[in-house]
């Protein structure tokens, strides 16, 4: 099966096994395919993951420096505003866990190569790494990259690989908005609401109620 448009995923949140399906829906973001989509939808890729000669998986864990780099990417996508940003929510560490544990090897490779590509773009534009670039330069780099990924993802064929920056953006959003800061500060979170009010006045600017889990 493939989950490649947003409406099906949305509607999936409507059936009786709602918690489950909403989980899939929330993680996928009701969005077009993301790098790790195969693992969310349960359709393992037909090509087996590359395995080293000694039988160990080829993936090398992210270093502290790489996690710091991911933090800066996430924080550029979701910076401090009236609420703390993605770095404060330790989103880089979450991204590292997800890529290591949940991405298929081909997507891990796309993600890693993407980190190198981004640094190379920073070198070209700013004569330094992404992390060492100024916040304004980082934002400019990622704004360009965001346009690039959006154009690519909106027109790519279903079996084409995902764009690495879509992966980064998805993991940043997922990591941030399911973090404690993202749930309790950026949104509102009550573990046990105690009642259901089906229709309340809403004023623009009020934030969402976060999901249970």
């Amino acid at each position, binding site marked *: *099966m493939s989950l490649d448009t947003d*409406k099906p995923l*949305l*509607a*999936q949140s*409507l059936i*009786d*096994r*709602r*918690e*489950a399906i909403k*989980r899939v*829906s929330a*993680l996928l*973001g*009701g*969005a077009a395919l993301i790098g790790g989509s195969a*693992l969310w939808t*349960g*359709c*393992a890729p037909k090509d087996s*993951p590359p395995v080293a000669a000694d039988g160990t998986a080829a993936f090398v864990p992210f270093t502290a420096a790489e996690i710091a780099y991911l933090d800066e990417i996430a924080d550029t*996508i979701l910076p*401090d505003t009236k609420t703390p940003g993605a770095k404060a929510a330790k989103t880089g560490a979450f991204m590292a866990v*997800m890529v290591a*544990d*949940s991405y298929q090897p081909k997507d891990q490779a796309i993600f890693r190569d993407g980190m190198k590509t981004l640094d190379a773009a920073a070198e070209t534009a700013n004569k330094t790494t992404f992390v060492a670039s100024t916040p304004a330069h980082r*934002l400019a780099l*990622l*704004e360009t990259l*965001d346009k690039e990924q959006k154009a690519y993802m909106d027109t790519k064929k279903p079996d084409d690989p995902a764009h690495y920056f879509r992966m980064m*953006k998805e993991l940043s*959003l*997922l*990591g941030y*908005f399911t*973090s404690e800061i*993202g*749930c309790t500060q*950026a*949104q509102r979170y009550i*573990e*046990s*609401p*105690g009642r*259901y*009010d*089906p*229709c*309340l*006045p*809403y004023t623009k600017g*009020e*934030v*969402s*109620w*976060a*999901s*249970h*889990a």
Partner: protein
Amino acid sequence: MQDQVQDQAYDAIVVGSGISGGWAAKELTEKGLKVLLLERGKNIEHIKDYVNATKAPWQYPHRGGRTTDMIKHYPVLARDYPLNEKNLDYWVDERESPYTEAKRFDWFRGYQVGGRSLMWGRQSYRWSNIDFDANAKDGIAVDWPIRYEELAPWYDKVEKFAGIAGNRDGLEVLPDGQFMPPHKLNCGEELVGNKLKKLFDGKRHLIHARTANITQPLPGRGACQSRDACWLGCPYGAYFSTQSSTLPAAVATGNLTLKPFAIVSEVLYDKDKKRASGVRVIDAVTNATTDYKAKVVFLCASTLNSAWLLLRSATDIWPGGLGSSSGELGNNLMDHHFRLGAAGDLEGLDDKYYYGRKPTGFYIPRYRNVFGDKREYLRGFGYQGSASREGWSRAIAEAGIGGAFKDAAAEPGQWTVGGMAFGEMLPNHANKVTLDETTKDKWGLPVLKIDCATGENEAKMRKDMMADMAEMLAAAGVKDVKTYDLGYFPGQGIHEMGTARMGKDPKTSVLNSHNQVWDAPNVFVTDGSGMTSASCVNPSLTYMALTARAADFAVSELTKRNL
């Protein structure tokens, strides 16, 4: 051979502790029988063992998602939504309990005390005579041996005890019951529902979903707190499960013995008395076998597991197993086909929101091939759906990064509404389970081989299932309506039914009108395996009613010394 025989005789043995088994244990113990409740999996104690029930999203390393390791270890579960980080322990370890697929069949199992009553969807609807008349009217399979009127008082009983929240809608196709106040429709759902009333000659109804999440307290149970974390186990006991409801009632009688890790390898059959004498149990931990004796045996192991057990039983008398003299044991496997429908955007509600996370949505009962409607397929379908405002996840596919992007993503987004169809699957002798003697599970039992597929009738129905929802939404003013069909494989509905159908004739059915095996009247099968047809309506409430009815009959027959 068995390692030992348990000397203590029980009045009744119940195999399986899910929705049906819990009801059998409660009813039989409350009527004074000494009952042994056997469960193949581990114990899960109410509240104490719901280890993730109150965890926050950020307390899960993968935020509830799945890892490549999980996919490797749960290849079947990974085919659909059930594989997740939060309640992984409630799903069967596939490495220990394999099965064989002649055709793809997604069998999502819960092997523990409470079975799938811990993770079920809780939708609770009565079937009607439109369902019980269906086979006779269409001239397919065999006629149901019962009608709605015989089941109605049992629906009353189980609804009152389980606690079903719903509205009395007065619809013939979906009979009203003993309801608590419903979980309210939100503004989006009400908007579409009100529009629908004036469309389609008033024949299509958007109603409150009827669900086993209580809106008023019951003894030992608190009302729903709108947490929407049901399938982790509810610390308030607010949804019906074995643990929250039937098990405490059975324990309170002092007549119940619950034995986890007890795999029933066969029903023991006494060919002289033409009765079952008990069951043989494999200890799941030590592999030791023990025979347990009882006057009656209730099989409530779930549809496919009850059939699997019958196939392995009394094979010295009937090579095809206990109940196979009809030629129908293992046959007529059904499910509900689904995973398609439509969804779209609601306008005019941007100044409206809701508070709390309700555990259900709306339901649109069947309207096809009833009340004068005639389609080019048999039977029909219903919809489950809901309306809500989009959350942060919509931002993944949207353009933008930075502060304004982040703050916008934190606000609720577009109101959307959609529905997914659940369709009736016809009984078909060719859809069957058999023993696969070439493959054994961890305990040396030949595994089940499943051979099941949908047919032409389902394919024709699916066109309507998808198109009708889009038509209704568009007619109700919903914008940007999109249809979808995610595809369907049997089993995904987790509504397995059939394989030991009820009927009027021992030559063509496995069970009689009281769920007794024709060939062994002290063996009752009261889970989904007895279903003669599938309806399009969620089946669990009907299993409860059938089980309570069969338990009452069994005790009355015991009293009359007929068993």
